[in-house]
């Protein structure tokens, strides 16, 4: 049984998705989602433990040996991301129950969970597979279900947002499949480990083009500046639980895929020494941090504000990776995890506000510091984490990022990283001031959100604090994964 865990992880939510679509009961579909989420969390934790103990796990699908058959490959990095996916789903699903009932038409609820399960399965598949074409298939599964999920938002503009994401996402997917096609043309293999050995560390036109297509394609999925235009609308108009889920998982898995391609498939020597991709990625990330943060400052809708902040934060993750050092990669991987915790808790807090107040525009936050103290306290802590205040996960990310930049004497990078933090103070504090210093407008039911929403929100908030106070576990795993990506050995 336990040797089949890598595939079980994907099969359980996939089967549950099909079941959820036919049972026509919202509650039952939710139950399936909850069950899958906890099964995935349990198995991913045990996989992580196994990887830490014994090193990487290879699972051969259907007994066909690689490079002919599809191989699943769980190393420290993928196990870490799997735990993140399982953990986020396990926390957000309880939140979704009442939030979804309020925001989505009751006839659609079971379809919603079906799509959510498909998306979840797709993301898990992308993370665990060791086969590039299989990865593309899972990418499409997760993307198409994400379009559906966004279109279910109660605002009519959700349709437009989903359509826009569909167009840009499809362009991205096409780019990815072209890149994979070129890799296959060059090497005749689709297996990542096999590709890594077959790709030479020298200039080669087909490989260069393949790298370009893949980087741009994945860049679209992870909303790397300036390919982020789909993200703000999608996050703003999607249902609250969906936004929280996508913001803390989808872009993170896309970053994982980018790191996989750049480091594992193409290899450090080709990507960064021959192609010097860091010279393109680092400036883009710096622009992304500044542009995302500056746009966030001017938003009147808090979900959109957080969406622009996500553009900046994803740029932090990619920036860490593009430093091409163990410290930089550690920073990137840590921030991938940490940002999921921060944005998850912030979007969940906004979900609570949506549930009680029916709007997440900044005017609607008036007086919420008094009427919804727990929700707004969660928002403040999540915001401080985003800023990078000590004892939150944001500080740990920032510590490693600054260290990575200082190590290489990159002062401009250091300055932009910290400037981004300070811009975060501005956009978070705009909300804090309205919530705590302005009087409530008076209409609306008032009162604190129900416990079924508050408990998941606070679970993520506490995770922000816990992993900020004792980061030895996460930084150890991220450091190990970083050494692995750099080809320095380790589990």
């Amino acid at each position: 049984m336990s040797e089949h865990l890598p595939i079980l992880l994907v099969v359980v939510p996939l089967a549950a998705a099909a079941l959820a679509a036919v049972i026509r009961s919202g509650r039952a579909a939710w139950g399936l989602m909850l069950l899958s989420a906890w099964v995935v969390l349990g198995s991913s934790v045990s996989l992580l433990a196994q990887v830490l103990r014994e090193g990487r796990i290879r699972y051969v699908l259907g007994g066909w040996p690689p490079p002919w058959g599809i191989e699943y490959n769980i190393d420290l990095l993928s196990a870490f991301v799997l735990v993140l996916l399982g953990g986020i789903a396990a926390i957000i699903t309880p939140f979704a129950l009442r939030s979804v009932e309020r925001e989505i038409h009751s006839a659609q609820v079971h379809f919603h969970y079906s799509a959510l399960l498909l998306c979840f399965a797709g993301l898990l598949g992308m993370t665990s597979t060791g086969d590039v074409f299989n990865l593309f298939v899972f990418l499409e599964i997760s993307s198409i279900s994400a379009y559906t999920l966004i279109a279910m938002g109660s605002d009519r503009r959700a349709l437009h947002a989903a359509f826009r994401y569909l167009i840009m996402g499809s362009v991205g997917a096409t780019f990815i499949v072209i890149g994979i096609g070129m890799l296959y043309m060059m090497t005749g293999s689709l297996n990542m480990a096999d590709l890594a050995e077959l790709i030479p560390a020298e200039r080669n036109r087909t490989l260069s083009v393949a790298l370009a297509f893949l980087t741009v394609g994945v860049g679209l999925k992870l909303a790397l500046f300036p390919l982020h235009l789909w993200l703000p609308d999608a996050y703003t108009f999607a249902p609250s639980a969906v936004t929280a889920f996508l913001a803390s998982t989808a872009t993170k898995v896309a970053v994982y895929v980018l790191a996989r391609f750049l480091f594992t498939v193409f290899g450090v020597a080709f990507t960064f020494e021959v192609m010097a991709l860091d010279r393109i990625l680092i400036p883009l990330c710096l622009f992304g941090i500044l542009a995302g943060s500056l746009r966030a400052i001017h938003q009147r809708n808090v979900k959109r504000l957080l969406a622009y902040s996500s553009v900046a934060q994803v740029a932090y993750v990619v920036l860490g990776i593009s430093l091409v050092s163990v410290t930089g990669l550690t920073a990137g991987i840590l921030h991938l995890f940490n940002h999921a915790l921060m944005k998850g808790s912030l979007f969940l807090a906004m979900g609570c506000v949506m549930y009680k107040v029916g709007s997440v525009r900044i005017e609607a936050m008036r007086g919420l510091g008094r009427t919804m103290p727990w929700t707004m306290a969660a928002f403040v802590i999540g915001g401080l984490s985003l800023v990078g205040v000590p004892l939150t996960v944001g500080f740990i990310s920032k510590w490693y990022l600054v260290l990575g930049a200082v190590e290489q004497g990159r002062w401009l990078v250091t300055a932009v990283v910290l400037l981004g933090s300070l811009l975060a103070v501005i956009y978070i504090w705009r909300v804090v001031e309205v919530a705590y210093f302005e009087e409530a407008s008076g209409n609306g039911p008032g009162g604190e959100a129900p416990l079924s929403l508050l408990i998941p929100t606070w679970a993520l908030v506490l995770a922000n604090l816990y992993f900020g106070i004792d980061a030895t576990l996460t930084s150890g795993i991220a450091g190990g994964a970083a050494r692995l990506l750099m080809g320095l050995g380790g589990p």
Partner: protein
Amino acid sequence: MSPESLTLLAPAIPLVGTLAILAARRHPNLREGVTLLTAVSLFVTVLALYPVIAGGGRPQVVLLEVLPGLALSFEVEPLGMLFALVASGLWIVTSVYAIGYMRANKEGHQTRFFAFFALSLASAVGIAFSGNLLTLFVFYEALTLATYPLVTHHGTSKAKRGGRTYLGILLTTSIGFLLVAIVWTWHLTGTTEFREGGILQGAASPGVLMALLALYAFGTGKAALMPFHRWLPAAMVAPTPVSALLHAVAVVKAGVFTILKVVVYVFGLETLQTPGLTTWLLYVAAFTILAASVVALTRDNLKARLAYSTVSQLSYIVLAGLLANHAGIVAGGSHIAMHAFGKITLFFCAGAIYVAAKKTEISDLDGLGRRMPLTFLAFFVGSLSVAGLPPTGGTWSKWYLLVGALEGGHPVLLGVLALSTLLNVAYLMPIVARGFFLPPGDGWQGGLKEAPLLCLLPLCFTALGCVVLFFFPQPILNLVGLLP
């Protein structure tokens, strides 16, 4: 109890106090009782550590490991002992004063006020006892955030604006410069611990050291070195007890304390004596001393004038530290205590004047000294101490500062200090003179009208403290004398 557990207990007491204050929110008398009890037990705990530290002990406690090799840890040494002693001792006095002040002015949100006050003290003690740069940074940021609700206490648009400046400058400097300096130090030395003799010795070229020193000096925004001083006047929108304890003692002293710690335990005096390393920063500090005094002269609002005076006085300590010799360190360390007593007295008086006469502008104080003689007498004593004149404690720190400047070979600074003393007299004494010698502006018919007793007693006590410290400065001088 062992010194280690006392070390751990000290920051925990106000933390528990915060929760207890919140729990007692429905019973104001009980709540204030909790504040006083917390303050007294904190002071007793800190005091119990005094003989250990004076005897050369350095209790250490490692709280937990945040990252491999980076721990949250406490270590008590003379400088931290002094800072904790001053902050916790004056907290008792301020609590008494705050109860009188908040009630007499019928201020709102008193539970929030006292709770965050206790939280601020917990952060201040955390800073005082921090065993490495990381721990110091953690509590430094905590202090900024814990004082924010106190600064914006009134919730008016003026308070909100003040709060923005406060948070903006303090976070910009700490995240933008101080954090970089700490990470850089970690990169160079592989440690963030405070060690006798410093950790940076021989770890970097003079150019890098100079850049690092600048990052530390300007990154510690709480030390209010120009041009990063604007947050301090902005913080004066807070109720006066906050200005008195936090923005004349705990917060600002946390800033200069950080600089002294960095000078003594991160750079080490020997490293800083490299020719040319500190010179330009010495002149920045000297400029701040003079410029802030001149600005203080032009301010008619009493609290604003005191705030600029604080900016100027903080740079005395920065300058003293940067002299990087024994006399300088003694001057800087003792000035933390001496200035605290002087300035808190002045703020207490400003608050008492507001409570009793609702006056905030200096030009309105004509003749008020005849109505409030004790308050104005205390103000006079506090002014003497701030200016560094006998018979007050401020004399001693200024004495050592002059010695340090001479030993360091900076005769120009002697001139700066002399000029600054004159300026101090020029912006403080007219207030006293106005109160006693000018005819009252409004129809005063004679008779005394001092502030309520709970406000009056604390300011008499601290004024008395200024005088006592002139005759018995030994406990403080002995403590800082242990420093290199």
